[in-house]
């Protein structure tokens, strides 16, 4: 009797988790690319307020006359907003699926990389989302002001960071963002980037996350458990 590969069952609910993961990775990379440009602009403040204002002005007139005023800015804004919406949607879907996959929680959970970042990515992500909204209200729409209202962007920056709580808000946001990127970028890197290069695909499972603790040495030494090394040993043995 001829039998073939069983077809996928039609019970699939929503998009494949791996597709969501790819969406997270791609939109995350868009975000990271923007952050690099943003950081370049921010660094102008170290050159001087004039340079910073010049940068802020230039980004609005970039590409003229091919583009109208703020043309590039709006392109960036739309791309960022779309990325953000997709990123948050994918994350929320994954979060919901994760919760549905374990409705009965463990009484005790190991403290370690994975369980920390499982929380850090989600709650931290929510914190970053809140911050982004605040940041836009603060610097873009200027609905919120810290200190006085200024026409010069550089002045607004300097005024904000002359208040301790302004510094605190931005510092906290940077910490959350750093944590988010630490796992997001390197974790995403495993998936979609360097991981698939020939030498990386045999990465030591235990050493993937340097922050993780190892068990005591000897028998349980990660090197002993390394699949490739172990295989060489065993093959030599046979």
């Amino acid at each position, binding site marked *: *009797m001829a*039998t073939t590969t069983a077809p996928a069952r039609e019970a699939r609910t929503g998009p494949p988790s791996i597709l969501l993961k790819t969406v997270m990775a791609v939109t995350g990379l868009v975000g990271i690319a923007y952050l690099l440009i943003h950081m370049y602009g921010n660094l102008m403040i170290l050159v001087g307020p004039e340079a910073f204002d010049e940068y802020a002005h230039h980004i609005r007139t970039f590409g003229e006359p091919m583009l109208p005023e703020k043309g590039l800015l709006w392109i960036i804004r739309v791309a960022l907003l779309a990325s953000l919406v997709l990123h948050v949607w994918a994350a929320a879907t994954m979060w919901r699926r994760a919760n549905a996959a374990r409705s009965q929680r463990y009484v005790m959970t190991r403290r370690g990389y994975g369980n920390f970042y499982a929380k850090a990515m989600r709650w931290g992500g929510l914190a970053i989302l809140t911050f982004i909204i605040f940041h836009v209200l603060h610097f873009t729409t200027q609905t919120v002001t810290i200190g006085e209202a200024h026409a010069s962007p550089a002045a607004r920056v300097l005024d904000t960071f002359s208040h301790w709580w302004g510094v605190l808000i931005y510092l906290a946001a940077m910490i959350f963002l750093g944590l988010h990127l630490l796992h997001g970028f390197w974790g995403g890197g495993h998936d979609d980037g360097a991981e698939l290069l020939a030498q990386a695909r045999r990465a030591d499972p235990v050493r993937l996350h340097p922050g993780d603790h190892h068990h005591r040495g000897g*028998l349980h030494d990660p090197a*002993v458990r390394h699949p490739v090394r172990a295989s060489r040993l065993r*093959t030599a*043995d*046979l």
Partner: protein
Amino acid sequence: MTDMLIEGLYREGEPIADTKAPAGDISQKWTTRQFEAALVNPANRRKLSVIIVGTGLAGAAAGATMGEAGYNVKSFCYQDSPRRAHSIAAQGGINAAKNYKGDGDSVHRLFYDTVKGGDYRSRETNVYRLAEVSANIIDQCVAQGVPFAREYGGLLDNRSFGGVQVSRTFYARGQTGQQLLIGAYQALERQIAAGTVQMYARHEMLELVVVDGVARGIIARDLVTGEIETHLADAVVLASGGYGNVFFLSTNAMGSNVTANWRAHRKGAYFGNPAYTQIHPTCIPQSGEHQSKLTLMSESLRNDGRIWVPKRAEDCDKDPREIPEEDRDYYLERIYPGFGNLVPRDIASRQAKNMCDEGRGVGPEVDGVRRGVYLDFADAIGRLGEEAVRSKYGNLFDMYERITGENPYEVPMRIYPAVHYTMGGLWVDYDLQSTIPGLFVTGEANFSDHGANRLGASALMQGLADGYFVLPNTIRDYLAKGRSRRSARTTPPSSRPTSRSPTGWSGCCRSTAAARWTPSTRPWARSCGRSAAWNAPRRVCARPSTRSASCAPSSGATCGSWAPRTRSTSPWRRPAGWPTSSSWAS
């Protein structure tokens, strides 16, 4: 033939002749049988059902193959998934007469080695067939994606195993059984998805259903709900493994409790060569009363390790490193200077037991006896260096350290023999059919292929040979001719004269459950296994009996003599001077 109990132990049975093997040259028998066995039309296969108990190599392979052929298969296992069957624990490898090394191997040589290794007590017709299909097994497994070890040229690697002089063993590191079983499991799951196989996991067979002398189904218990179910089919296949756990401690899995075979035997299926139990010399010794099972280490350790016990019983407590050379008894080197530590398995096992029974065993005392001997690598480490020893035996040393908490690079290992495989089993004919028509037995559960001693890497070969190639070709003859016996679905329930109906069984189980056995059955099983099975043979052997086949040189440490009397059709000449036995495998 008499109804009298002979020596109070056994009764002579009817002579059994294997009538299924065709006449003619041994090398043509399988071809002839395949041709002569009746075929079942593909359209009729859909109307036939087969129950297969057990999902190890033999059971899963048979289930997948029968499913592919289009029969309705009901597959049963007590584990939570067919992938857990204990075939998975086999380490060494699988033999096949491929002659890929060009070292003079052939079907005939594999046949010869297997028969010789089995002390000329296996059924030669079956063994020849086994050797013939062995090559197909490797082809089949590779096609399924079993990741056998390969050489840099991309071709399959072989090694020499079990004391033979050719390299015919295919392997996947130390996990050959796992890889082969996963291959068969995947083929089975494919058929489950295709709808030809219905899987009943967490089901334990309680009884064989025999109607008018013909096996027609099983009674099984759903281990989750406790329900007792009757399943009927046109034929029943037992692929439920060996009975090593009658010794309580063995290398078998916890759930391998031989219930299926035992019930079939109680229903009249003959049991062949129960004494033929393989004892493996290099297991990790028992550490205390708490022990639930034993773990095997590769016998390759004996290539470089030296086995010894203290000469004086009072030294057994000492740190072995403090016992001077002159106070050590390298007993294998002393008794068998020609072979030294590389004596055959059975001899190494028996001598280790003798040393411990003399009171010179080492390690923790269990029941007042120290059951362990030293396997010392100090010489090898001195001669080759620790690194060389590590590269050769690193995995085994790690495993030993994990289980015992001792570092074998520092102190000698302790080893002790353990029950490992049972060559005996339900008697089958050339078609693998038992003495109950319609009941087929494959793999370790049957008795036919290994004689008194199984060669290394032959268990996997037999399981897969039976499952993939032999049973599907022989059972069709029964199914084709038995269609006049009507399909199981048409059997009215009232005409099921089982010895104990499903309702009877559930009543029995309820009363057992209600009885709340206190204390548990475990101490009972432990003491039976130890005193009745493991220690009893000495008593029996001390009283030599011409009927006790298992006192022969390579039959392991145990004896027994309740095999049904069978008539030998063996063309082989028994070596002169060996004990003759009427309970030989035929």
